[in-house]
Structure formats: C-alpha cells, structure tokens
C-alpha cells in the first residue's frame, strides 16, 4: 500500500500488479507480431458505402463480442465457486430458436425483435434450470452444467429437426453486421452489456454477496446472504448472456450450425476468465479482466489466420501463447525469476519489467 500515490511509478506498479495487465501485454505483442508481417496491419480505413471503419482491429472487436458475453457470465458463475460448462450449448439453442423462428417469420423489425426476445427467454430458462439443479437440487455445478452442455446440443437438433437452418431478416442481421458511428454494432452492444453488468454488481451489494458465497457458503448464510436466490440469478444471467452470444454468432451468418455454433466455446470462456485474473477457486472476480481475456482470445484467433499458421499447428500455437501467459501471471514463477535476479542489478531490472 505504501506504493500508492507516489507518482507515476507507483501507479505503474499498481497496474502491473493487476493480473489482466499481462493479458493486455499479450494483446499488444500479438498485434506487433502481425505488424511485422504486414506494416499496414493496424491501418484503419473508412468504407463510404456503409459508413463503417474497416480494418483488422475492427474485425477483432467484432470477433470478441460473443466471447465477451460468455466470459462475463462465466466470470460471475466462477465467483460463486461454480462453473458453467453449458455456455456453448446455450449459444446453439438461442441460435436455433431465433433461426427457426425467423425462417417462418416475415422480414421485419418486429420479427427480429420477437426472435431476439424468444431466444433470450429460452436461454434464460436454460440458465435457470442450471441454477435450480445447483442450488435447489444441490448437484455439483460441474455435473449439472455438463448435463446441460450435452443435452443442449440435442435440444437444438430437435428444434431445427436436425438441419442447419438459415433465415433472412435484415434487422436481425444488422445486430451482428451493422455499424453505428463507424463501429460494429455487435461490439458496442457487448461493451454496453459488460458495463451494465459491471454497474449492477459493483454499484450494489450484489457483487460482494456473490463473492461471499464463493468464499465461504456457511459464513455467507450466517451473515444472511440468500444463497439459493443468488445462485438462481447468477446462472440465469449466465444463460441469458450465452443467449446473447448465440444471437451474435448466428446473426453474423444468419445460419445456425447445430454441430458447430458455440462448439467448445466454454473453454474459451473459462480461459478468458482465468487470463483476466479470476481464480477458479471462486470468491473474487474481475469483469474487466474477463473482457481483456475475451479480447486476447479473439486477437489470438485472428492472428493465427493472419499469419497463416497451418491448420494442424493452430491448437498448439494457441496453447503455447496461453501457457506462457499463465506462467508469467503465476506468482510463484515470478518470485522464482525475481530471486534469481537479486544477484544482479535489482532496481534497473525491475524497472525494465514494469516498462
């Protein structure tokens, strides 16, 4: 604490201590790598036809939107020392509901809103079922959401009759492909939702109570925290946000792919949360960190394609980046490095790291 308020150096130290700082560093590094491949990588142009900014950065923001949604939901669930493995399956359910509805509905704004409402309602209900399984029935979060993860894709198949349904609706398509003030609508929406959720949990006691049940459910109960109600709410929110992500993903191509939409995205969500500095043990959470994590994963995905890493090496490339990042974040590894350096010129080295 003594570092606090001692000018820019103190501020810098404070920032470096934040876990998601290394996520930001990783994003910058990846962008630099891309920049060396193509010096015009970061350039952003203006498309007069649809009044939009075009560039690789804009693509990254757009790709990050669905991951941001599921990461925020996952972050809250993990804070209660639970986990939600069903986010990817809820995405496909939301996509299936909206596409199946739109395939029969007229191409109007009202149709798009109805599809959106229906999809979000169904996703929230699925989330609620998760919540009931966890809080009322008392199943392990891992098991209940695993069931939902497996069942969800089946439900989506039943909804579309085993087909990859596509539909036409300009308003719905605009959600994922439109632009507002030159920025992709989908990213602005995602950002707005993150801010909204952030205000909701941090400006009220909600966040504290979520952390309380994650830290020690017994103590929380004795302190009068309504564990059951909170868990129901948190899992429903996670379901709802996954539904939003599902709408984002399917609206971008106006097709739901029952076997691929949201496939294995629960892993991306968990990674984003962990990169953002939220411990899987629960008890604390960091929404900004989860957002940074989501942006990092989107950047990583885009980098792999931009560099032309071969398909077979893609998972390995991603794994290496993430393992290195986790190692840097680990306190123990950092301590090890620091103790080795104490023999050298300590202060200057430390400054180098901070910079």
């Amino acid at each position: 604490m003594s570092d606090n308020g001692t000018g820019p150096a103190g501020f810098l130290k404070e920032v470096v201590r934040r876990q998601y700082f290394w996520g930001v560093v990783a994003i910058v590094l990846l962008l630099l790598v891309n920049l060396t491949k193509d010096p015009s990588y970061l350039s952003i142009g203006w498309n007069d036809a649809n009044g939009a900014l075009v560039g690789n950065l804009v693509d990254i923001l757009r790709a990050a939107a669905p991951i941001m949604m599921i990461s925020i939901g996952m972050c809250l669930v993990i804070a209660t020392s639970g986990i939600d493995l069903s986010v990817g399956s809820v995405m496909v359910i939301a996509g299936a509901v909206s596409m199946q509805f739109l395939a029969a509905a007229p191409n109007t704004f009202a149709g798009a809103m109805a599809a959106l409402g229906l999809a979000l309602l169904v996703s929230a209900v699925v989330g609620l079922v998760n919540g009931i399984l966890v809080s009322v029935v008392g199943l392990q979060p891992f098991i209940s959401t695993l069931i939902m993860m497996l069942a969800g894709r089946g439900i989506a198949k039943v909804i579309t009759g085993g087909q990859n349904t596509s539909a036409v609706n300009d308003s719905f398509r605009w959600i994922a492909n439109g632009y507002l003030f030159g920025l992709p609508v989908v990213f602005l929406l995602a950002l707005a939702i993150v801010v909204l959720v952030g205000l909701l949990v941090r400006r009220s006691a909600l966040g504290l109570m979520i952390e309380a049940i994650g830290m020690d459910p017994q103590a929380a109960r004795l302190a009068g925290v309504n564990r059951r109600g909170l868990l129901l709410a948190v899992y429903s929110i996670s379901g709802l946000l996954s539904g939003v992500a599902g709408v984002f993903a399917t609206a971008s191509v106006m097709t739901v792919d029952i076997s691929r939409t949201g496939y294995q995205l629960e892993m991306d969500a968990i990674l984003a949360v962990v990169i953002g500095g939220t411990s899987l043990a629960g008890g604390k959470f960091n929404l900004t960190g989860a957002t940074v994590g989501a942006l990092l994963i989107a950047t990583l995905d885009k980098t792999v394609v931009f560099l032309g890493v071969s398909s077979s090496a893609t998972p390995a490339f991603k794994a290496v980046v993430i393992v290195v990042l986790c190692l840097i974040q680990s306190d123990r590894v950092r301590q090890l490095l620091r103790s080795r350096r104490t023999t050298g010129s300590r202060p200057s080295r430390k400054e180098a790291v901070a910079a």
Partner: protein
Amino acid sequence: MANNRFLAKFMGLVAVGALALTACGGDPAGGEGTEEGQATSGDLTTVGFVAVGPEGAWRQANEANIQETFTEDAGFELKYAPAANLDQKSQIDAFTSFVDEGVDVILLSATEGSGWEDSLTRAQEAEIPVILIDRGIEPDNTDLYVTRIAPDNIEVSSAVANWAIEEFPEGANYFVLEGPAGVSVVNERNEGWDAVIGEAEGFNKLGAQTANWSTEEAKSVFETVLKSNNNDVQMVFAQNDEMGLGAVQAVEEAGLVPGEDVKIATIDGTKNALQALADGKLSFVAEYNPLFGETALDVVNKTLAGESVDSYIIVPSLTFDSPEAAEEALPDRKF
C-alpha cells in the same frame, strides 16, 4: 442373451423414433425403419444396416435413401441400427447382434475406419456378406467385405480443380477452406485438388486454414484472409458447402462481388449451395452424391445370386457450373 440385448436396444430405438416423430412432426425414414423391424416375414430378405445416425444433412439424405430403397415391396426387411452418438462400440454391438441373428446381408457405414477385423471375420465365418456404405475400413482388407459403395472424394475434388483451371487459364491466387485437420475426407479432398492444380501453371496457393465445416468460422477466417492479401484473392476452394457460404458473406462484407471478384467453389451439393449458385454467389458446386440406394440394392441382389462384384464401386457425382444448371436441379434436390 445377445438377442435380449438387441431387443432392449431396439425398444430404445423405437422410443427414440417415436420421440423424433413427435418432435419434428413426422420423419418418414425413422417411422419406416421401426415398422419394418417389427414385421417378421419368412420370405423377405433381411438386411441389417449398421448406420452412422444423425450427423448432418448429407448423412440424413444418404440413410433415408437406403431405407426408402430396401422396402418390403422390394422384398426386403431392413433393420436399421444407427450408432449412439457416433460411438463405434455401439456399432460393433449392433453388428454382432445381426451376425448372431443370422441376417442375409449386412450394410455397414463405419463411424471409424479401424478396429473392424474381428467383427468382419465373424460375419465371414457365418457366411454373411458385408457391404460397406460410404465409409471405408482401415486397413483396407478387401477379403473381409464384398464391396464398398461410395462417391470418390479424390475424383470430386479433381473435378473442382479442373473447373478452376478452365475458369482461370492464366492462373489465380487461391485459398483453401478445409475441414478439421487429419480427417480422411479432408486429406482425400486435398489430395485430389493438389494433384490436378499442381500440374497447372500460374496457380498460387495463398494458404489453407480449417474452418471446421462451419459457415460462421469460414466467414471469420476468410475476412482476415482477404485483409492479409489486400483483397487479391481470385478463387476459394471450400471443402464443404457451409464454409463456401461463409466465404460468400465475407466477400460481400469486404465490398467485393462474389462470383466476379472472388469465385468460390464448394463440394457437397446441398440445397442451400445450389440456391446460392443459382443466385450467382457461388461459382461451382461439385456434388458428393449421397443417393445410392439403388446401386446398393443392385449389389445386394447380385451378391445373393452368387455373382461377383468389384471391390470398390464409385458412385457417380454431378457437377454444377452455372446458375442455370443449379436452377434445373433445385426442384428435385433431396438434401
């Protein structure tokens, strides 16, 4: 006791079939399979079909077609046994039950290529001919089965490459959207394409990326590919229809015109792809024909009559290279 197990499984299948019926408002294929299974008639030829089950539009068309061909009217009793969740063990169990039961012929679409030697040997000892439908086995020991009936991936992808050479006499910069790395279909489709395009002059491969058969991923991948090559891409080879349709959307987003600035060729020939071809968004669609029930019927009859058949029967597949051709084929498209 194996019979009992099969019965239990079969009841499960009936239940699933009923569920599917109520859920999707009537799936003729599922209903038919269960009805025929229950009817036991002495003078019908019993055919056990060890199938893959729900996998996608192509598989659905393929298996429905088989079920519609081997009807009671044609003199067959078809026992349809789809795998549970693409699990090979459930297929081996179903296969064994068919052998124990003593069906006349077994049709097999293996979810996985390896591990079939023991089961096939058992069928051989019981003198039950086995015919492979679509999927082959590894190692490919032709003594163990009568024949494999399937469209040829290498031939289909060569057709795409030949079209590309004709369309771009001067050559072109092209990009390949692949399925998941390591899958045999992907390898074969690459092999056919590379063999033909490698001979041609002027073709420059910008790269290949997997989009996991998915429209959404293909769109995301290809928008980045366009940017990293400053839109200097003339052709895309998408290894299935869905990815091709994703590439179309990426091209449109980039302000280019699919079919003019970037020509996109796909494999499979589903309804959606033919519609896109008719609209001029795709430029070439090579069919991977799932409808070969008639061929299978012919082979079964020949085998039972003791005639010999080739060990590999290639199902002819069509290609569509113009909007007119697509429009003509659209009304009768089954998948």
